[in-house]
C-alpha cells in the first residue's frame, strides 16, 4: 500500500521528485527507507546514520511547510532528529523561529540531483520512544 503523492500545481514539481532527490543525496551517508509506516501514519523518509546509529525522520512538502511541521512534531517520538524538507524555491517562506521552538530541522531540496542543503540542524528529540525508534532502525538496517 503506498501513500498518494501530492502535486504542487504552481511549480509543476511532484513531491515524489522532491523525495527522489532527497533520498539520493542522503543515501551517500545514511541507510534510507521511504514511506515507512509508524502507527497509523507514514513517514516520508527515515534515515539511519551507520556511525552514530541516529535516526532521522523527514517530512517532505513542496511548499506547505506548516503542514510538514505538524507531521514533523509527531515524528519527534519516532527518531532522534526530525526534519522537514521543502523545495528550494519556497524555502524562504519557512519561519525558522517556529522550527527552532520545536527543535525541528530544515532541509532545502531542489529539482536537480545533489541540490540538497541542510539549512538548520534538528535538536535531539526529548520525546523519543525508544521502542518505536528501535523497531524503525531495525527495519531500515536489516
Amino acid at each position, binding site marked *: 500500500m503506498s501513500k498518494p503523492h501530492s502535486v504542487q500545481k504552481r511549480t509543476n514539481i511532484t513531491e515524489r521528485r522532491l523525495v527522489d532527490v532527497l533520498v539520493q543525496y542522503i543515501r551517500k551517508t545514511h541507510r534510507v527507507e521511504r514511506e515507512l509506516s509508524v502507527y*497509523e501514519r507514514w513517514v516520508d523518509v527515515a534515515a539511519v546514520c551507520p556511525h552514530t546509529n541516529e535516526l532521522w525522520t523527514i517530512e517532505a512538502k513542496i511548499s506547505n511547510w506548516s503542514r510538514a511541521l505538524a507531521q514533523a512534531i*509527531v515524528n519527534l517520538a519516532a527518531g532522534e532528529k526530525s526534519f522537514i524538507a521543502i523545495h528550494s524555491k519556497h524555502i524562504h517562506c519557512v519561519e525558522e523561529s517556529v522550527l527552532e521552538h*520545536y527543535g525541528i530541522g530544515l532541509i532545502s531540496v531542489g529539482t536537480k540531483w545533489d541540490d540538497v542543503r541542510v539549512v538548520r540542524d534538528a535538536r535531539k528529540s526529548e520525546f523519543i520512544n525508544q521502542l518505536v525508534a528501535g523497531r524503525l532502525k531495525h527495519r531500515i538496517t536489516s
Partner: protein
Amino acid sequence: MKLHLRFGMHRDVQLMHEEKDKYDGFVIPAHILAHQAASTSVFVTSLYDRPYIIDPMTFILQNPKSAHVSDAGTIRPSVEKLFSDYHPKLIEKILTLSDDQTLSPKNYPDLGEFCQNCYNFQTKKVSTEVGETGAAKYLKRYKKTQSIMPRLVVPPYFCFANTSTDPFYAISLECAQIFQTKVKNIPVAPVVLCAPAALKSNGVAKITEDYAGFPTVLLWMDGFAQGQAQVADIVLVRKLIHELTSKGVKVETLYGGYLMATMCFDGLQALSHGVLYTQHKSHTLSPGSGGAPERYYIPGIWEFRSMSQTDIILHQHPDLMCNCAVCAPVLAGNPDNIVKFMDNPELLRRHFLTIRRGELDKIESSSAKNEAARFLSANRKYHEAFSALPNPDAMVSNAPIQGLDYLKNWADGITATV
C-alpha cells in the same frame, strides 16, 4: 449513569461478552441485523442478561441514491435487505432515482404499514432467525436458546432541520404516535434526530410539547462532535434534556461522549456509543463505510487521539499516562510502552470500556461546577502541547477549535443557566 454499547463490528462480539460488567445494555443497528441476520441474532440472544434495542436506521432513506449504491453499482446488501423488510416497494422506488436524488417524503410508503413492518422487524427478526437458522447449537454454549424482546421499540425516525416547516419532523412525530397507539406490550421510545440549530427559537418548546407523552426519548444530536461543540449548542441540548426530563420523560442519547455524559446533571439517563467509535455521528454518513482507525482514549482530556499523537503527548506529559487495570501493567510507568497497544489493539478497546465505565459511575456524584473546574484545569496544563499537534486529529477535518480549547467551551456550556 447507564451505558448502552452500540454494536458495530463482529470483532466486538468477544469483547462484549467478556466485559459485560462495563455496560448496561446494547444497541443493534437494524441494517446489521438485516444483513447478518443469523450471526447477529445469535449474538443478541447470547447476551440475554443485557437489555437491547434495535435502531431502525430509517434516516438512511434521506440519503441520496448514490449513498445506497456500492462500488459495483448495486444497492448495498445491508440497505437492500433492511428496506425489503420494511416495505416491498422501497427498493423499487429508490432504483428509479438518479444518483443525487433522495426519495421524497411523498413517495414514502403508507406510514401505518411502514410502522407495522418496522415494529415486526424489531420484535420478530431475532426470534425468527434464532428459530430458523439452526442457531440453537451455537446458543447452547450460552445456556440460552430463546430470544428475548427488546427493552424498547423505536418508531421510524428522520433528521429534521426545524420543527415548524420540515416535513421530516411531522413524519417522525406521526410514526411515533402510530407506535404509541398500536404498541401496548413494550415501551415506545422515539428518536429526536436534529442538529442543535434545530432547537433554536421555538424548537425546544415544540419538541417538549410533542414528545412529553412518551416514557423515553432517544436523542441524537446530528454531527454534534464534542471536540467542536460551541457553547450555545451545548446550552440548547441541555435545555432540551432539562425540559423533557421536567415532563417526566426519560432521556437517553444514541451517540455521545463525555460532554454528553455531563448532561446527567440536566437529567440525561444513559449514554450510547460504539467501542472506540461513534461518540458522535452525522445522519448523512452511510452505514457500512468502514471501521474507525485504532486510537487511544486519553482520560485526562476526555477524548481520543491517534496512536502517533498519543505517543508524543505521553512523552511530553507522562502524568497523562492512564493507570487503569488495563493500562497499568502494559505501560508500567514508561510511555515508550504505548506502542504495545498498537501490537494488540484489543487492549485499546478494553482500556476505553474500563475508563468509560468508571467515568459514568463517578460523574453522578460530581457536579457541573466540579466538572467545569476539571476541564479548565486540563486546558491550562495541556493545551500548549496539544495545540502544537496536527489539528484536528484523524477523525474530524477543517475543525476551527484548536488544541484543547473545546474544554473551555465545555466548561462554559455545562455551567450556563438553562
